[in-house]
């Protein structure tokens, strides 16, 4: 076991152990101050990377005479106006373009990507146990999500209340699958940290 000589490895070992101390000592000052440092660096990195993008995607094209880019730049700068009292309504224009643009792009393909494609994928020949189970399970889950009286009263009249309960049970299997796999994800991040401490730092 020979401890690493690299100062950066020492610094990250210190940061790792300070944050891990939170688990055993809830308001440990190490955790509080190291976390503040990390949040500061994270915000700083965002500004640095954002600035290099502004140079590449805004300033250089403008200098090369591509003036059509002035429109989005103008809208982007309007976002800064939000901090001038009385003028913050001006910032609504870039927000409108961003929110509506995102919604429009999402809407354009959501129906095909999720609604239509997944219904097509649900059209299975009912000739095997798995396919029949998937067919009934899918109908039950969709029926479970009937919420308003207009549909649920019809379900009660047709004595189909049990379909909603079946839908809820099938959903529990899906949530169980996600729950089980989440544990793997959380553990792998902690194991990654221990690997760093044991191999890179302590050289085991």
């Amino acid at each position, binding site marked *: 076991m020979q401890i690493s000589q690299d100062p950066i490895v020492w610094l990250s070992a210190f940061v790792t152990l300070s944050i891990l101390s939170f688990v055993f000592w809830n308001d440990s000052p190490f955790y509080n101050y190291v976390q503040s440092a990390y949040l500061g660096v994270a915000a700083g990195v965002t500004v640095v990377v954002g600035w290099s993008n502004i140079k590449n995607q805004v300033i250089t094209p403008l200098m090369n005479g591509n003036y059509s880019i002035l429109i989005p730049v103008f809208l982007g700068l309007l976002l800064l106006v939000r901090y001038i009292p009385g003028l913050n309504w001006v910032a609504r224009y870039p927000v409108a373009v961003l929110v509506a643009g995102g919604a429009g792009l999402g809407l354009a393909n959501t129906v095909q990507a999720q609604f239509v494609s997944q219904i097509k994928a649900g059209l299975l020949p009912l000739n095997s146990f798995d396919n029949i189970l998937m067919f009934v399970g899918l109908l039950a889950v969709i029926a479970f999500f*009937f919420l*308003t009286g207009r549909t649920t009263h019809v379900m009660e009249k047709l004595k189909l209340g049990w379909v909603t309960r079946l839908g809820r049970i099938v959903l529990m299997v899906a949530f169980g699958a996600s729950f089980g796999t989440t544990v793997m994800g959380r553990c792998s991040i902690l194991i990654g940290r221990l690997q760093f401490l044991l191999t890179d730092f302590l050289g085991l």
Partner: protein
Amino acid sequence: MNLIAGKIFSFLVLIALSVMTVLLIQRMRQSKEPVDIRRLAGLDALEEVVGRATETGRPIHYNPGIGSIESASTGARVLGGMEVLGWLSFQCARYDTRLITTHSSPSSYAIAREVVRNGYVQAGKPENFREESAQFLSSNQMAFAMGAVQIMQRENIASNVLIGSYGAECLLLAEAGNTLGAIQISGDTNAYQLPFLIVTCDYSLIAEELFAAGAVLSNNRDVYGSLIAQDYGKIIALVLLVVGSLMVTFGNKAIVQLLSW
């Protein structure tokens, strides 16, 4: 001008959904019909939440999660939670029960403060409104969760309401509430956090049930109208699935072609 092949059916479905949504929202805005939603376990438990807190004299804690109101994906969920908060604050004002809410973003803090104060005004007791009912903790997920847990432990809360937009912090909040023996109701559309909420809380509003509960409690006509439109969309899906599957079983691919038109 012509339609792009392969996307025509989706376009028709989108138009049908849009027309239904707009018409139903307009009609619900005019009609006096009460918001009629199927029985939701989480909704009925809200009475129990207020009752338990009033009997024991211990406060109710509400927390909308780390999600911000501005972003499209989390905004609707936080606003659904705020509608539940509106009902809660009215009940707390009526029964003089203490209500504490903790927040991770200045905007959700500001809106919650307005919602709770409004609840006290409607109950005719504006003077009973207390600052503790809306507290901004931190925008960092872990610091926000631990701050809320410390308040829950210090105040020894009777009930814990976690309806909004959550990340991994909901595990911390729900576990703390559980170890305090508080009655807990949760609600989120985030399928990755729902498993934890269902296992740790007594009652859970699953996915769109959250919006339905919010619409009932605050008589939100727009949400009610769009929920009806969504239900009709589900009927379209069920019809396509049943007819399509039967036809595919007998080797007829007409519905599959229709969907890929």
